């Protein structure tokens, strides 16, 4: 069989179990694709190659992910595979232990084929600030893949892998999934353990799957989720389980916040979301326009302050003494963020910046609580635009914050959300629809997304490469 790399998780599992092909053939197919494409695309920082094939030879395919190739964002610690966070500070770093998610993936039989590119330290929404060069968008290589999980999203879109994992702090799963036309599922904060994922903004960091279909993402989330004694903020619940499928969306109220169409919204993005609204209505949902949702501009400011503050604290540990190189290896973006965080936390400025932002965070959480009294779920665009051109982020100190303004509020409140393909713009770049729900209501997110996907064809389109 050819083109095994193009299979979804579901198709690959069926093929392996019915012995149509082997785990080695499946893995080899992904590695071949990477070899032919990745010099240009640059989705991967490290490719495991022979080690992956060796693992595929002896894997038990009856395990939940037995023999399935997976691409892992390079901020998950992986024992014996280097972990760089796309920063030269960690250029030679070999983690001494596996992240909790990596342990779970290995126990489930997944084959790690490589570590994917990201904005250095996950600081950004373009994958352009990686110290290993930008990843390109598989739909149009003059454009950015989004970020920070841009390598994972591009690798899935380009069929270099069957599934992948990314991490989101405020948009880093949903925004690259949107720009690359794949499915990105950001779970409730605490649903997936943060242990062993290099800390960025600890109070919102949420690891999650990026896949080709809603079901694939949900199946992967089942394996990744669950409480973890090594992460005190993980939710004290057993692993998440997919709910029953709904026949339709009758009885569900879905909110559409008018403030999620800021002035810079690309007209095609607005049209796409309004088109999605019609599909959801046909499926039986009642769509309610929300006119009093807090303007996302406040979330940009809250996120900017809190992210920089937590970054300045989290990156203090990189001193070059126990691992990695010293602080002179930090790139400009990291320096800029550490500096603003240190400034906003330092004596004399703490109340005006950090404390004020944490109070406005309360208002953002209360705003969602109020909206969810009126509606069951909320939808909107993931990003005001489709993928921007290479170079768009350069010299823009708040590029990511502005690109991610429509996903920041829900991240700040710790809500689950998903990005699914819902249209293409006139030059063929994908547009993503996001669905958000109250904390721990991934079941609703999944049910709505799955029904939308079952009734549309956008997820079947692949870039011509």
């Amino acid at each position: 069989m050819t083109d095994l790399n193009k299979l979804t998780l579901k198709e690959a599992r069926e093929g392996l179990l019915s012995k149509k092909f082997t785990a080695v053939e499946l893995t080899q197919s992904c590695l071949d694709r990477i070899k032919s494409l990745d010099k240009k695309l640059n989705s991967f920082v490290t490719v495991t190659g022979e080690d992956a094939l060796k693992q595929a030879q002896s894997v038990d395919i009856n395990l939940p992910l037995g023999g399935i190739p997976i691409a892992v964002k390079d901020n998950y610690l992986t024992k014996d595979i280097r972990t760089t966070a796309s920063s030269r500070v960690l250029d030679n770093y070999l983690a001494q232990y596996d992240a909790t998610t990596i342990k779970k993936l290995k126990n489930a039989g997944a084959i790690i084929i490589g570590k994917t590119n990201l904005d250095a330290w996950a600081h950004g929404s373009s994958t352009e600030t990686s110290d290993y060069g930008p990843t390109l968008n598989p739909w149009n290589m003059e454009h950015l893949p989004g970020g920070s999980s841009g390598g994972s999203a591009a690798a899935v879109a380009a069929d270099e892998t069957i599934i992948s994992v990314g991490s989101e702090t405020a948009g880093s799963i949903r925004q690259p999934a949107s720009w690359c036309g794949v499915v990105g599922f950001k779970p409730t904060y605490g649903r997936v353990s943060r242990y062993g994922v290099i800390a960025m903004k600890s109070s919102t960091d949420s690891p999650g799957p990026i896949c080709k279909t809603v079901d694939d993402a949900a199946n992967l989330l089942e394996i990744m989720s669950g409480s973890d004694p090594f992460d005190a903020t993980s939710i004290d619940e057993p692993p998440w389980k997919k709910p029953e499928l709904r026949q339709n969306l009758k009885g569900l109220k879905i909110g559409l916040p008018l403030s999620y169409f800021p002035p810079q919204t690309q007209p095609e993005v607005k049209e796409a979301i309004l088109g999605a609204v019609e599909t959801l209505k046909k499926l039986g949902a009642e769509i309610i326009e929300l006119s009093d949702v807090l303007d996302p501009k406040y979330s940009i400011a809250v996120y900017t302050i809190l992210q920089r503050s937590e970054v300045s604290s989290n990156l203090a540990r990189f001193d070059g003494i126990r691992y990695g190189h010293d602080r002179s290896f930090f790139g400009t973006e990291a320096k800029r963020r550490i500096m603003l965080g240190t400034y906003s936390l330092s004596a004399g400025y703490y109340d005006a910046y950090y404390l004020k932002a944490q109070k406005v965070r309360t208002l953002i959480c209360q705003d969602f609580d109020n909206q969810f009294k009126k509606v069951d779920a909320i939808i909107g665009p993931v990003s005001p635009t489709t993928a921007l051109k290479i170079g768009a982020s350069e010299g823009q100190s708040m590029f990511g914050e502005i690109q991610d303004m429509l996903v920041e509020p829900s991240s700040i409140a710790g809500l689950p959300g998903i990005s699914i393909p819902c249209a293409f713009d006139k030059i063929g770049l994908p547009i993503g629809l996001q669905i958000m729900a109250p904390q721990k209501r991934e079941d609703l997110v999944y049910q709505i997304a799955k029904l939308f996907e079952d009734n549309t064809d956008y997820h079947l389109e692949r870039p011509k490469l």
Partner: protein
Amino acid sequence: MSDNLITDAVFQHTAKLSRLEIKPEESYIKDQLAQAAQYVEVLKELNTDNVPPTYQVNHKSNVLREDVVNDSLSQDLALSQAENTTDAYFKTAPTINKNK
């Protein structure tokens, strides 16, 4: 938040607190900090009197466990990624200057 003018002195002090060396060609970071500080002024539009801060969104607190000794990294493994070690220790730059 009203006085967000980032002076050279504040900038240098912040770099020192951050343990970062800012190269001359990176001096534009100072202007970008001022821009960001200016942007977040928008929060002043919202009244937060009597609003408590939210540090943690899933409201867990004081997560404790029994003080049981578990397996941990061996000394060799713990030291394996350090550039400078001496005997069985990490080697650091001196923090006390005996001549002063």
